[in-house]
């Protein structure tokens, strides 16, 4: 999860960065399940993994895909 977080902020391709955040959410949702928080796991899976990612992807499509220095 930490790896995904670092990847998400260093990669120049914003689509991959978005995928990085959704991986964080996915990992988070598994951890929540392991910590006996099924409600939170379900919310994180639906909102963090699916909806948030799609919102980011739409935003990237409407702007620029690559981050330049």
């Amino acid at each position: 999860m930490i790896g995904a977080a670092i990847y998400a902020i260093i990669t120049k391709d914003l689509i991959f960065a978005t995928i990085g955040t959704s991986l964080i959410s996915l990992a988070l949702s598994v951890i929540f399940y392991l910590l006996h928080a099924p409600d939170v796991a379900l919310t994180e899976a639906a909102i963090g993994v699916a909806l948030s990612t799609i919102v980011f992807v739409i935003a990237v499509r409407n702007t620029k895909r690559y981050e330049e220095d």
Partner: protein
Amino acid sequence: MKKLVIISLLLVLGYSLMNTFSDIEFGKKREGISSYFLEHSPDDLQVANTVTAIVVSFRGFDTLGEVTVLFLAATAMGTILFRRRSKHTGLNPQRKSPQASRIVQAAGKLLFPAIMILGAYVFIHGHLTPGGGFQGGAIIATGFLLLLISYRQFKVEHKYVTWIESLAGLSFVTIGLLGMILGPHNSFLENFLNVGSLNDLLSGGVIALVYIAVGFKVGAELTGILDTLINIRETGDID
């Protein structure tokens, strides 16, 4: 240089947080209000899922606020993106993006009803199993998302979304206000129905109703948000 300053500041923050939290042993039981919740949720409310009981009853005001935050987000995005609604809205929009492949379309058609049923199941059973209004609503929005991306000509009827959103919100507040009239303590959001018995579908009194309203509202709001974002292109320039 700037980065060094920021990193050192973050290290200070991280150290002080770590210092604070390391006293708290991981996985140790602590005293607090939660024991009261664990006791009273099954006994007084007959709600099996304690998290639901907390979210809807004990801290029901937070949930009302939360639903409002989503409503606000949808309204705010409308304000930010859709200034000066252009005249050609809805009239044969020429989408630049290509159609999704047939496989995606077929899968969308197959999956959509299943997702809808899953979403509805999740928020109707919110007081029994994990899940509830937010989760169910989010799942339903995912279903609409599938249709929105696989069928380019698919349009969410704004009229219906507005109606569902408003009516669900109104019923939430109305249930709350009814609690002020009918409830034993005359307080907002109070239960005034028969609570039934633990682990029945018809248990928990008002809680189940509130969570269903939340489910509809969240579903409509999230669908609205996605629809606003996906359709920016065709409504053209905002300036």
